[in-house]
């Protein structure tokens, strides 16, 4: 591939994404100019809303595919997962960049964002989250440097290659720490967060779910991008990958049930109230049904089964984070919060930017395995001329 040979195909979907990204971008600037009050539905009762709940807490979990794949491929040396490692890293990197933007938009005194680097509030869980997320984003950018220098700035390539082992290890270590910290953030809501979710094990639950949502995210992306680019997903790899997720989910389920009984909160599950039903939804749709799919070989090995598994696990983790941030807090706080139009459009805009960035990089760098890439380029060309 020659340098300075950039390509970005335009399709109707991409035009729509660009429009959404542009609207989102404009509203982000507007928010920074006028403040949080006029642009969001946040209040003294609901100080954290969609940007923290969805863009940050959920975003970081969904970006977990990067570290779990990295752990399997590069640290544990399971070679069969190697073909998807770069795609997983890329999604994770983009995910974290979006999280950083989301966080930046949500903080009131944004010009002060660097304060915790010098004013060490080290007793705060947020302090750990802040350091880990910013360091890990940097590490991921450097990891991506190894891929980027294959095409641009080639003379730096060897340096990136040399530091890669350190980056890989730090790049697994940091997410392990802060994925769990995101759960620890809510440990301070003692007596406030509904007992179905508040637990001293919150950090472990958040960590485990961020790990098992990784394979689901990677599968989902592979399936989606195969539709967008015509490149065939690595079915065998994905199927063994979700089996690993399945074992983790099994442990998660057992731990979750055990914890509920230990804290005497198990009775609340079938209370029939909003909290109980949302908890059931989270556990049945997001854990139990996917587990059945995962451990039934016939279902796991079908394309539909893989797709259903992935969609359910991702949805389950999203519901879980939303339950912790909103459902579980609403009984204590009272009143209601629903994101404003601007909050929605900014979040949608961020996702659109992420998808566009992913597509651009996949088309211009070596992300998916070469041989497949070339094949799909041919079929693409055929499809587009047809």
């Amino acid at each position, binding site marked *: 591939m020659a340098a300075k040979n950039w390509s970005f195909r335009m399709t109707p979907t991409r035009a729509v994404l660009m429009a959404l990204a542009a609207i989102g971008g404009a509203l982000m600037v507007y928010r920074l100019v006028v403040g949080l009050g006029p642009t969001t539905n946040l209040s003294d009762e609901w100080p*954290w809303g969609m940007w923290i709940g969805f863009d940050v807490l959920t975003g970081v979990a969904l970006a977990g595919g990067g570290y779990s794949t990295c752990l399997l491929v590069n640290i544990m040396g399971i070679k069969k997962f190697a073909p998807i490692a770069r795609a997983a890293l890329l999604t994770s990197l983009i995910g974290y960049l979006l999280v950083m933007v989301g966080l930046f938009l949500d903080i009131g005194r944004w010009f002060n964002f660097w*304060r915790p680097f010098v004013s060490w*509030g080290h007793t705060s869980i947020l302090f750990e989250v802040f350091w880990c997320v910013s360091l890990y984003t940097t590490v991921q950018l450097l990891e991506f440097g190894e891929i980027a220098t294959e095409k641009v700035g080639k003379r730096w390539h060897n340096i990136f290659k040399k530091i890669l082992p350190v980056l890989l290890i730090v790049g697994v270590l940091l997410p392990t720490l802060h994925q769990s910290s995101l759960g620890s953030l809510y440990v301070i809501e003692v007596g406030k967060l509904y007992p179905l979710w508040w637990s001293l094990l919150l950090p472990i639950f958040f960590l485990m779910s961020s790990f098992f949502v990784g394979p689901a995210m990677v599968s989902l992306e592979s399936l989606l991008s195969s539709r967008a680019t015509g490149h065939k997903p690595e079915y065998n790899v994905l199927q063994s990958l979700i089996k690993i997720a399945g074992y983790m989910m099994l442990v998660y389920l057992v731990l979750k049930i055990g914890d509920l009984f230990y804290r005497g909160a198990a009775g609340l599950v079938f209370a029939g109230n909003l909290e109980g039903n949302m908890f059931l939804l989270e556990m049945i749709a997001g854990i139990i049904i996917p587990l059945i799919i995962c451990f039934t070989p016939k279902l796991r090995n079908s394309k539909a089964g893989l797709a259903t598994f992935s969609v359910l696990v991702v949805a389950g983790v999203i519901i879980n984070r939303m339950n912790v941030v909103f459902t579980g807090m609403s009984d204590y706080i009272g009143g209601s919060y629903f994101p404003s139009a601007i909050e929605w459009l900014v979040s949608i805009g961020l996702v659109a930017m992420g998808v566009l960035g992913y597509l651009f990089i996949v088309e211009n760098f070596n992300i998916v395995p070469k041989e497949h890439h070339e094949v799909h380029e041919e079929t693409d060309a055929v499809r587009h001329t047809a």
Partner: protein
Amino acid sequence: MSKAVLVDITKCVGCGSCGVACKMWNNLEYRKESPMLGKDSKLDAENWTNIKLVETETGAEKQSVWRFVKNQCLHCEEPACVSACFSKALQKTKSGPVVYHTNLCVGCRYCMLACPFDIPKYEWGKVIPRIRKCQMCPGRIKEGNSPACTEVCPTNALTFGEHKDLLKQARATINNNNKKYVQHIFGEKEAGGTAWLYISDVPFKELGFRTDVTTQAVPYYTESIMHLTPAVGLTWGALLTGMYVYNRRRNTIANEENDNKKGK
């Protein structure tokens, strides 16, 4: 050294002078739509204290009464907000007050979530907002005065002094008039103890106090997790490095063996 305020609910007549003194001393705006006194009063960015009117019943004959509850930051001994602040914008001073430093604040609002009494408020209408709450007039305390609100109280419902003295005084009051007072000093144990102590003749729950709050200092929960972090980080880091080195070495050996086989 630690200063405190004792609030005797039975003595408050709801005159509101404490609220006025607070507004004047701290240059806070008076807003018609957000009164600081009465049934609908609540804390917000400009109301650092409010005096809530509660209609309730008391005594054996269920006599209907009015009570006035002064709310403000309770200045916890081990404040959750201070522990939760990742840029040290909230700090506990030695003399008792929990003070906010605007220049250090990032505006993340985690303190609002962390506070077991939901005290910190936010300037939602401002482009560059601040966290707002009672500071317990640290400047006045430093000069040997009492907080503005306690200074002006005409009925002695508010008493300023040493924390341990006030605790003794509170215990004596409820013991000596044990028919009148509820046998509980709110703030003695709540959230690990607070600098503002309350005694009352009406159960605290009926007055809108959060009586189910943990008696464990809130930072205990999260700081015990934070303390684990370095150890977990080091162990996990060592484990990852070990795994990485081991697998690389195994691959190298496997490759060499492959080469040898090919050679043969």
